[in-house]
């Protein structure tokens, strides 16, 4: 018993060391958001909520918060709907070019966000379309579409096809089947895909930076605040960003895992 514990000690030590490495910056970020002083560096004084108070009176930051939520929700909704339709179409029919279509839909995942953003910036420029949050939303939809499609496509199985044809035999039209039967069956997966897209959009910086002008999103504002140097206000904003994406991911993960368990 003691022997096996000793044998496992290096493994346990390594595990702990890497976890410390992973969580160190997060802990420091959160800790110094409660700093009672003007610099988010040691020694720690506090705790104080003054930087959260300052953050919630920063109107540019609050506007950006609203913009981020709007862009994340709308672009994820668009990506989820487009991804669902594509996954449904490709899963139900053996199309001649099905493999090619899947590859085509997945292609954006292989290209850097920066390059996608640059391409959109050039295209919108040539087309005479100005920078705006709508442009950012379109950019976020294209980066999230492959993810939504992949998640949803992987969940379509043979039993969906059978239930689908059962609905048809009972006289349901295609539209009715999709809206009343398939979509409700896929609800947990649709929700998870939506949540993951929303966190990616919520975090995304470079496309938002390239395609927005006056109305910006939260990562862009935080980046701008960094130019003024280290301040606990950025820690507070960062902690908020972090907490919101963490909860969204956890909700999505638990919905997916719960579903797996139920099967």
């Amino acid at each position, binding site marked *: 018993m003691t022997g096996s514990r000793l044998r496992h000690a290096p493994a346990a030590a390594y*595990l702990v060391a890497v976890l410390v*490495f992973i969580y160190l910056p997060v802990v420091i970020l959160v800790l110094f958001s409660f700093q009672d002083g003007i610099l988010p560096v040691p020694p720690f004084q506090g705790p104080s909520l003054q930087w959260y108070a300052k953050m919630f009176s920063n109107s540019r930051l609050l506007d950006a918060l609203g913009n981020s939520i709007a862009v994340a929700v709308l672009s994820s909704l668009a990506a989820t709907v487009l991804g669902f*339709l*594509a996954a449904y179409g490709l899963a139900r029919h053996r199309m001649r070019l099905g493999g090619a279509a899947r590859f085509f839909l997945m292609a954006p995942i292989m290209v850097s*966000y920066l390059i996608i953003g640059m391409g959109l910036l050039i295209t919108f420029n040539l087309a005479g379309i100005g920078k705006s949050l709508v442009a950012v939303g379109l950019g976020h939809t294209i980066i999230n579409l492959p993810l939504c499609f992949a998640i949803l496509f992987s969940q379509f199985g043979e039993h969906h096809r059978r239930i689908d044809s059962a609905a048809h035999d009972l006289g349901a039209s295609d539209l009715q089947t999709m809206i009343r039967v398939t979509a409700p069956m896929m609800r947990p997966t649709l929700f998870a895909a939506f949540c993951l897209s929303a966190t990616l959009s919520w975090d995304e*910086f470079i496309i938002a930076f390239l395609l927005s002008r006056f109305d910006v999103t939260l990562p862009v504002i935080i980046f701008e605040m960094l130019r003024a140097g280290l301040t606990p206000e950025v820690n507070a904003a960062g902690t908020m960003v972090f907490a919101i*994406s963490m909860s969204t991911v956890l909700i999505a993960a638990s919905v997916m895992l719960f579903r797996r368990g139920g099967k």
Partner: protein
Amino acid sequence: MAELAKTRHQLGGFPLTRWAVYPALLFTLVFFVAPLAAMLVVSFWQRIEGHLQATWTLANYDKFFTRSYLLDTLFNSIEVTVLTTVVSIVIAYPLAYILAYRVPLRWQKVLLILAVLPFWTAYVVRSYSWLLVLSDNGVLNNVLIGAGLIDAPLKLAYTRAATVLGFVHFFVMLLTLTIYANLVQINPSYRSAAADLGASAMQIFLRVTLPLSIPGVVVGAFLTFVITIGDYITPQILGGSTEILVPQAIMLQVSRAANFPMASVMSMTLMVVVVAVYLLSSRYLKMDRL
């Protein structure tokens, strides 16, 4: 009645499900393929007196590949990216291995989620957090001075090492996930068969486990490579201004000079590098077999 339903299904049903895939295809065409094509075209244009001229010239490519201050950004990017990928694998592999083989099953999922949770969160904020750790008056220098190991703060932030550290932090999580997923899929009977035949623990690892886990390493390494080489924020926040990477050079062309042709040349070059890496690793990626 059944006949009628069937006919109606065929007539009314076909169009919708058949066409369901097209909105996504069209969207990808308009907002992904067309922009890349536009960028390719613009990379052959010129910017003359502040205006884009629709010419066909290789001058921008020529300039990028002959001026060392531009080309060096590419070498810097490749060096940082390769270093990041290698270090991330070296740290992540043992972690994934320990999770898969040394941790009791009921703890595996919890520890895995714990190990990869911050991956999903706050890209800009994460780089900034490392600044808090690495800056002159930051946590690490404070600890080292407090312990009496150094007298004056080390210059840790705003260096290439800081950039690599920021990246490695991010990608250790991703690689742990892909390698773990691969390791748990390996049939345990292979390992016990090798052991029964007298292989030592080291031999089992080198001849059985490691070769079978290569796909998981390659998938994670590919994603690491693609994201690292195209990332602007990590080197911009952590790397300082003495040496810049291609994404920073692209942003300089856009923001300072509005030089879209040169920015396009650099973006296309990055694309070519990524496609080359994709082709090298495509055996393991199976993008179309999802």
